[in-house]
């Protein structure tokens, strides 16, 4: 306890001693541990620590064995329903590490010296003399530089360095193209067929029963020689999909209450709405069959498909955009045009 390495006692400023109801009784006396006074206990602790290190070594060896013994890949070794490799490697590695950790801490607790040491604290601040010298040097340095006396030099330097920020910002310009009107258009065009989202086959009016919900995609996402749409790269396909996905829903024509101008946007009770939520852009997929309500699984915005995609509940502010559809010569559903408003989350420029 007399192991003070720093002897810079400070006067306590924290609470006046006279106010203290009970004086600080001082550090309690050190008490010996069993391992300090009983050689048998000491030996036992020593053996425990060594045994833990031994367990770690065995476990590490087992790790290497398991690494080569258990297969992964096409036909992984499975034990008890688990991939044997991962479980065995995790177990052996974990035990190898834990045994070292527990062993070292046991060593520290039982066998290392356990005298508590008192160290005095120093104030975080420098001494007043040091502070004084620093301030003087600062003032002297600044004075010699003449930065205060030569505002022309100072200001032009500030201007020059400040201007250097511009190239850094300008250089970021090519991170991506400007939005332009891209957010206002999707891949849909007049006469493009609505196709099934996975297989890409066109959808006949008679394919949908009342109450049915179907995920649709623009046919251009499934280019073939037959339909003549150009090949799409992976990125373009993903971008087109992120805006073009639609939901088809069929209900009794009498249930639809189209707003002005949308009277002929549906076909025999079939309506097509954007699948992309107007909140933050999740694909909407949960349907309440009876009520024609569509729920976004991400943040639960609910839209009414019978009432122009109006928001019924949740954080979305805008109605779901509707895709005007009609029937082509063969009775398949096609778009009358692109969406008439931007699809997906709101952004500043749009009205």
């Amino acid at each position: 306890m007399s192991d003070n390495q720093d002897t810079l006692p400070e006067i306590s400023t924290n609470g006046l001693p006279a106010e203290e109801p009970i004086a600080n009784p001082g550090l309690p006396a050190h008490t010996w541990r069993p391992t300090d006074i009983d050689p048998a206990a000491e030996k036992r602790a020593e053996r425990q620590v060594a045994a833990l290190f031994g367990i770690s070594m065995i476990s590490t060896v087992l790790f290497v064995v398991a690494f080569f013994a258990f297969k992964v890949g096409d036909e992984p070794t499975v034990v008890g329903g688990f991939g044997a490799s991962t479980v065995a490697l995790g177990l052996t590695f974990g035990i190898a590490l834990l045994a070292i950790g527990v062993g070292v801490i046991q060593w520290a607790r039982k066998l290392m010296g356990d005298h508590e040491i008192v160290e005095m604290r120093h104030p975080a601040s420098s001494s007043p003399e040091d502070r004084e010298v620093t301030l003087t040097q600062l003032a002297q340095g600044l004075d010699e530089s003449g930065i205060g006396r030569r505002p022309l030099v100072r200001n032009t330097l500030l201007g020059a360095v400040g201007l250097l920020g511009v190239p850094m910002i300008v250089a970021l310009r090519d991170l991506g193209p400007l939005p332009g009107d891209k957010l206002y258009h999707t891949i849909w065009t007049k006469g493009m067929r609505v196709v099934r989202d996975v297989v890409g086959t066109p959808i006949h009016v008679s394919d949908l029963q009342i109450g049915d919900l179907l995920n649709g995609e623009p046919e251009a996402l499934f280019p073939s020689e037959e339909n003549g749409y150009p090949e799409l790269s992976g990125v373009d396909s993903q971008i087109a999909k992120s805006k073009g996905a639609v939901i088809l829903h069929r209900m009794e024509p009498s249930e639809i209450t189209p707003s002005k101008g949308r009277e002929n946007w549906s076909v025999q009770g079939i309506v097509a709405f954007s699948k992309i939520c107007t909140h933050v852009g999740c694909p909407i997929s949960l349907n309440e069959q009876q009520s024609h309500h569509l729920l976004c699984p991400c943040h639960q915005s609910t839209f009414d498909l019978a009432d122009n995609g109006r928001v019924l509940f949740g954080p979305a502010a805008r109605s779901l955009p509707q895709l005007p559809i009609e029937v082509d010569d063969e009775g398949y559903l096609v778009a009358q045009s692109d969406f008439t408003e931007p699809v997906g989350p709101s952004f500043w420029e749009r009205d």
Partner: protein
Amino acid sequence: MSFDKVANTNAKTAATARKPSRGAAAVEWADDRLGLATLAKKQLRKVFPDHWSFMLGEIALWSFVVLLVTGVFLTLWFKPSMAEVEYMGSYDQLRGIHMSEAYASTLDISFDVRGGLLLRQMHHWSAMLFIAAMLVHMMRVFLTGAFRKPRELNWIIGGTLILLGIVEGFAGYSLPDDLLSGTGLRIADGLVKATPVLGSYMSFFMFGGEFPGDDIIPRLYTVHVLLIPALLLALIGAHMLLLVYHKHTQWPGPGRTNDNVVGYPLLPVYMAKAGGFFFIVFGVTALMGGLLSINPVWKYGPYDPSKVTAGSQPDWYMGIAEGLLRIMPGWETHIWGKTISWNVFLPGQIAPIVLLTMVLAWPFLEAWVTGDKRVHHLLQRPRNAPTRTAFLAAMITVYGLLWAAGGNDILAVKFHQSLEMISYFMRGAIFVIPPIVFVITRRWCISLQRHDNETLLHGYETGVIMRSPEGGYTERHLPVNEERAYKLTARDRDEVYDGAGETDANGVAAPDSRVKRLRSRLSTAMFVNNVQKPTVEELEDGHHHAEHELELEEGLDHSADGHQFDGRHSIEGEPLRGGH
């Protein structure tokens, strides 16, 4: 057992210079070139105080090391590319499907690299541990007042670390480019687009064009493996250096004052304990990685912007942002042909920053109100700062409510409630419940303070019931021992600042009187109800009272059962209840 036999580790004599060993020669070689001995002299036997709660930050530190180690391994196999490939690996259900190279290489790590899945799961588990440990560590620092002068800067560094850790975690779980992480990015895109004026530009610059583009994964990869880890490393370094420079705080106790630090030396005890603890954290992470499944990306499939899974949830630390997004009403302003999406911008960008700033700013508010310029190295018990404790309790309540709101669909299913009702409830609860929690916690703390004073003045309850000759029953109280009594009194008295009435000689209010009035009002609100520790006189009165009671029973020569605690017998060696 005799006490004269002492293990040789507790040396009783000073070490004497021996003939130079090989180790000494190595030190000499290094010191000739680096001159580290001067620094090492001070630091090798540096004292660290011991308390279980000081381990929380250590968990965060060591999980960060585990993250670095496992993360470096993962980079050896992961391909941060969104180029489209056909998966030909071992996982049967996805073979032949087109996907990004990032997702395919994540599948390879999971199925075709031995130990790859273990590393992935260890990496993800340690990330959760890292952020959880930082948050709990922050609560510990807050509740014990460890942020007070001179540690304010370290408090801010810690808050920045938590923010960076969360961003790092989000960047990390977006990398596999599976359906769930792609949905997360889509939501991030929506959040960015909601930024007034710049939103759509920011989105196009982030994704290299329209969402999803093919740039975001490689860009996030650089952010995830280089930019943020470097910042984290630098800030953790600064955090630790300041910790060493300030020396660790400690709990007040016998011999433990504001001017010293009592504990074990760095070499060997603390080094062994901390080093051993690193292996324990690493080992537990390895066990979790081997036995507990996390983020099974192969079940979600590759990202497809037209698909989503029901019950989509981000990692738990994003839960409050998710909850905020979900319960926000659908407010949007359309003005001059432009759109301000309050429904996304407020909960997604503003609210999380405001909440974090509120917690980070509290220490400065408190310091301003108390006007306390003294340095504090002794920790406070949470009950002795009732307003502060209640504030954190309220903030934790906000956090918990938002967390629950982030899972409102799951709550609706589990509790058979309507989703709408849960959301409406949460909209109100977020404003109503935290103040209630604040009031309750504050009164609770003050009651505990009162209890402490009762223990000091009247002793602790022994559980021994005494019957008086008249037939009345009383419980015997005994004074607590000196150590405990000292600990209960080792705290500052709160002072309520009163600057309201200050006027100058002419009776004109001082120019900054409005500020002073605010400060007085806050000070009163914070401290006036607190119970202060007893004065010397009160304590003496209490003791006299106890002695008087004993005198009244002087005539008795024996006591009922439990006599050993009646205050007339030595209690040395008697089993005491509750470890008093």
